[in-house]
């Protein structure tokens, strides 16, 4: 988990892969995920601002970007099968970003784990 950095709102940024997703705790809290709405390639994302929506059976939740950057790839796999996020939230990235800034102030995995204890 050393490459993962977190927002307290349960999104992660994988520094090595430059990918963004939600934590295992978040997927558990959301429940069965049935739809994911992602930005398009070329869209800008802003740290602390919503960039995606995740619909569980219960409700819709906004997903906040942990960093600033530009979307260079979206994970098509989760558009077709959103439940994959429930199966493995840390492997199921949502977007890949470039020109990244704003990594400072994110929580490392130990710090993040402490917030959900």
């Amino acid at each position, binding site marked *: 988990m050393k490459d993962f950095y977190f927002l307290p709102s349960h999104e992660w940024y994988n520094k090595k892969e430059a990918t963004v997703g939600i934590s295992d705790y978040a997927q558990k809290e959301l*429940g*069965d995920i*049935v*739809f994911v*709405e992602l930005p398009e390639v070329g869209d800008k994302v802003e740290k602390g601002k919503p960039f995606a929506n995740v*619909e569980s*059976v*219960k*409700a*819709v939740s906004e997903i906040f970007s942990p960093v600033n950057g530009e979307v260079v790839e979206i994970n098509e796999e989760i558009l077709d099968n959103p439940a994959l996020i429930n199966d493995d939230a840390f492997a199921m990235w949502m977007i890949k970003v470039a020109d990244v800034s704003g990594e400072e102030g994110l929580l490392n995995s130990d710090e993040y784990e402490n917030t959900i204890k």
Partner: protein
Amino acid sequence: MKLTPFFEKMAANGAKMVEFTGYFLPIQFESSGIIAEHKAVREKAGLFDVSHMGELMLTGKDAFATIQSLVTNDITSMKDGQARYTLLPNEKGGIVDDILIYRFNEQKYMLVVNAANCAKDDQWISSRLLGDTVFENISERTAQLAIQGRAAEDIIKEFITVYNVPEKNYTFKVSVLFGEEIILSRTGYTGEDGFELYCSDKIAEQVFDLVVEKGNKHGMLLCGLGARDTLRMEASMPLYGHEMTDETLATELGLDFFIKLNKDFVGKQALLDKAPLCKRIGVRLVDRGIAREKALVFDSEDKEIGCVTSGTHSPTLGYPIAMLRVDRDFDGKEVYIDVRGKKLKAEVVPMPFYKKNY
């Protein structure tokens, strides 16, 4: 905040609790989740704590006349041991609640009402009693479990003698369990075969353990409010506060079968005078996304025609569905629903979205 008699049992079984109409109730269970619980009910069986529902007893020589004067359905033809769905309208033709009437005998009835409306119904009915009618609100001491799904009958028959198991839908039997009277009706809110069991809170935990022990053998899962909502939506059953409110005309819901204008009741004149302006329709989303309550609905000419009253992803069908309240004269085949600024296409489909085939 109130706790139902099953709270401890549910919590011990991994229930994730939410506040609902003043009670802590399970929304889902840790080990399963809404979709697994939903599928258990569709394929085998599920057990719900529905003790939050209200129960109002009306007894006496004029109990019949009191109820008949307050509800849209006609209870004249009801026999002992039958249950009947009806709307409880207000003077303006709006809806105070939608309820079930249980007839024990000519002078004894139980009304089962929505938890959120229990205090309102209590006030509404108890202030309109005719002649010799005794009113009692027994909600606080009444526990209720719903055992739903095609395996429900087998589960029930493991601990209730065949004679005391209601055979037909919307009938009920009274029997004794753990020394207390229980009411078992063949009713539910899931679109499946199933039962609702009313008992005294004194024996609630014993009854729960018994149902779980027998149910486990038949693949029954504990279920929460989340699955209850997706199940009733697939069956296109209206939910008070969503499809209907005090302001919704009783004639705007497609429930005309339950409105009998050949008898008198509070609000009948309003229903005769006012033309319904809206209707309830069902749609299947064609575009990706989920249309939630309050989302605005447009026709193909981009004219606003109404809003979503309930919407979800249908676990059984595998696509998103929604119930809409739209202009009465809309007769198109497709609509566009505004979901966070995007107009998602949806096609009008017949309700119920799901129908059991056994």
